[in-house]
């Protein structure tokens, strides 16, 4: 909580949040102002704390997947995939090729959706409203596809441990190809509107700069770290889910300011489209989930017609998956950075301890250092460029 102890008399205190247009979630920033210059900022988070880690200890491994939707609600599918990969690592299993490729396609589509929201809302806060509509049109198309696939727009629960909830429908490939045709148009439109825009450049260049060393020490990952010039991307460095099969580049910035973060996100969307193109061209046939009765549910025909199928279904629903005693930490590259799950198992059907490592948490603590000496309007621009999602921050 903020205290007035150190508060000097000639400065003014300004509350940004907990509920403010620019915070996109509930988090509180207390700014100490000298005129319009920011002298210091203190942060208060936890307004969206729901105790997900405590709840995980009472749920089976599959039962936790719906809760991962509620962490980063801008890109829920990436959370589902990240969690499923962590549990699969704990169990020592690998998903079939088709499941992996479908995961990659949905992962990259959601990454595009997340970046569309991040850039769209960031520039709205700065005062450029048009781009928001160009981007949200595409986001709507992606969400329509997600709805067609899983039946929900935000609460997707896309994966299961050991694969996916279900295979995709017949016109999935043509839908993806339509998106691959349409999304670059909007990206190019916004590129033309913003990248060389004098006002936008004045508002963002050299605003919220952070050096590479400081960023590493704070635990930055993702686009915000790449904007400082380090080509660190887990999809390339520690490939998972078949990312080693795809050809793509890691965009980097130079100064680590708000403008570079915008450029990195724009280029990442183009690279994601490249990955989707390759994945949909080489989408293999076969099952999407592994066939292990102790991990995935048997097909419905077996449940209705065979004794073993019914027993396996019943046992899995009632007792869940049992992992061997041990621990795992697995991090994947989501839209904001590295989302990691540290799972400790004691051999029961519930995780003994599940710790989520949200990327925003490490990034947001550097916010006071970034805004010191700048103007209030810069603070809003920086906050948008960091893409802080309160649901993930507070869990």
């Amino acid at each position, binding site marked *: *909580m903020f205290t007035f102890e150190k508060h000097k008399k000639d400065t003014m205190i300004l509350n940004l949040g907990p509920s403010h247009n620019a915070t996109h979630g509930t988090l509180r920033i207390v700014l100490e102002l000298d005129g319009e210059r920011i002298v210091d900022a203190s942060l208060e*988070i*936890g307004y969206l*704390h729901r*105790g997900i*880690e*405590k709840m995980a*200890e*009472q749920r089976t491994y599959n039962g936790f997947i719906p809760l991962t939707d509620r962490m980063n609600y801008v890109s829920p599918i990436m959370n589902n995939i990240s969690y499923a990969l962590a549990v699969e*690592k704990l169990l020592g299993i690998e998903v079939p090729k088709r499941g992996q490729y479908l995961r990659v396609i949905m992962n990259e589509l959601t990454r595009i959706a997340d970046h569309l929201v991040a850039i769209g809302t960031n520039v709205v806060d700065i005062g450029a409203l048009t781009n928001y509509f160009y981007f949200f049109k595409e986001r709507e198309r992606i969400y329509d596809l997600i709805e067609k696939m899983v039946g929900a727009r935000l609460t997707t629960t896309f994966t299961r441990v050991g694969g996916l909830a279900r295979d995709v429908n017949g016109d999935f490939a043509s839908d993806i190809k339509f998106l691959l045709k349409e999304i670059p148009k909007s990206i190019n439109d916004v590129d033309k509107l913003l990248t060389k825009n004098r006002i936008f450049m004045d508002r963002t260049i050299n605003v919220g700069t952070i050096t590479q060393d*400081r960023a*590493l*020490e*704070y*635990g930055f*990952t993702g686009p915000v770290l790449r904007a400082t010039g*380090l080509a*660190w991307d887990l999809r390339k*460095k*520690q490939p998972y889910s078949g990312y080693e099969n795809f050809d793509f580049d890691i965009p980097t910035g130079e100064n680590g300011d708000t403008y570079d973060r915008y450029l990195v996100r724009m280029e990442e969307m183009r690279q994601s489209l490249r990955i989707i193109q390759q994945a949909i061209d080489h989408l293999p046939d076969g099952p999407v989930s592994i066939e292990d009765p102790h991990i995935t549910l048997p097909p419905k025909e077996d449940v209705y017609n065979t004794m073993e199928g019914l027993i396996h279904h019943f046992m899995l629903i009632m007792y869940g998956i049992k992992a061997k005693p*041990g*621990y*795992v*930490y*697995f*991090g994947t590259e989501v839209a904001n950075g*590295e989302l*990691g799950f*540290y799972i*400790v198992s004691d051999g029961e059907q519930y995780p*003994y*301890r599940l*710790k989520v*490592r949200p990327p925003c*948490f*490490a990034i947001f*603590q*550097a916010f006071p250092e970034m805004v010191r000496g700048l103007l209030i309007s810069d603070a809003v621009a920086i906050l948008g460029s960091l893409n802080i999602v309160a649901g993930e921050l*507070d*869990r």
Partner: protein
Amino acid sequence: MSELIETIQKRFGEKIVSVQEDFRPRSIRVRVGDLVEVMTALKNEEPFRFNQILDIAGVDFLNQKPRFLVAYILLSTVTNKRLIVETDVDEFEPVPSLIGVWCGADWFERELYDMFGIKVKGHPNLKRILMSEDFEGHPLRKDFPVRGTVPPEQRYAPWDKRRTREY
């Protein structure tokens, strides 16, 4: 035994209590007293260069002595390696702060204190981070109830006599 663990054991010798190689990433266990020294060396010295601290996770083993395990999850963007450094602490026993090594440890240590009640010695601003200031107890301890009840005196606001519905 992997190359990384071998170099660590050669460098630190007695300070490494045990190593775990069955799970990923590999982990080493050190005593609380040696933690800062080992971590500083792991960050700065050449073959290791673990320049990022990704997370600090507490685990509560309720009936064991010592009670808590604190896991520091490290990543090196130089050598592209991961490592978990574990340490055991008992109830009421503090862990040293690592803000001097990585400044990003700040909020992770506050979360550790908030959720488990493990004091962090040397932390400049050790306050609750996710729960409110007046919250009692530490929610991720295993003896904290999952489903609580609201004490009768808090069921309605005393200044508002019209509110009779119980929450």
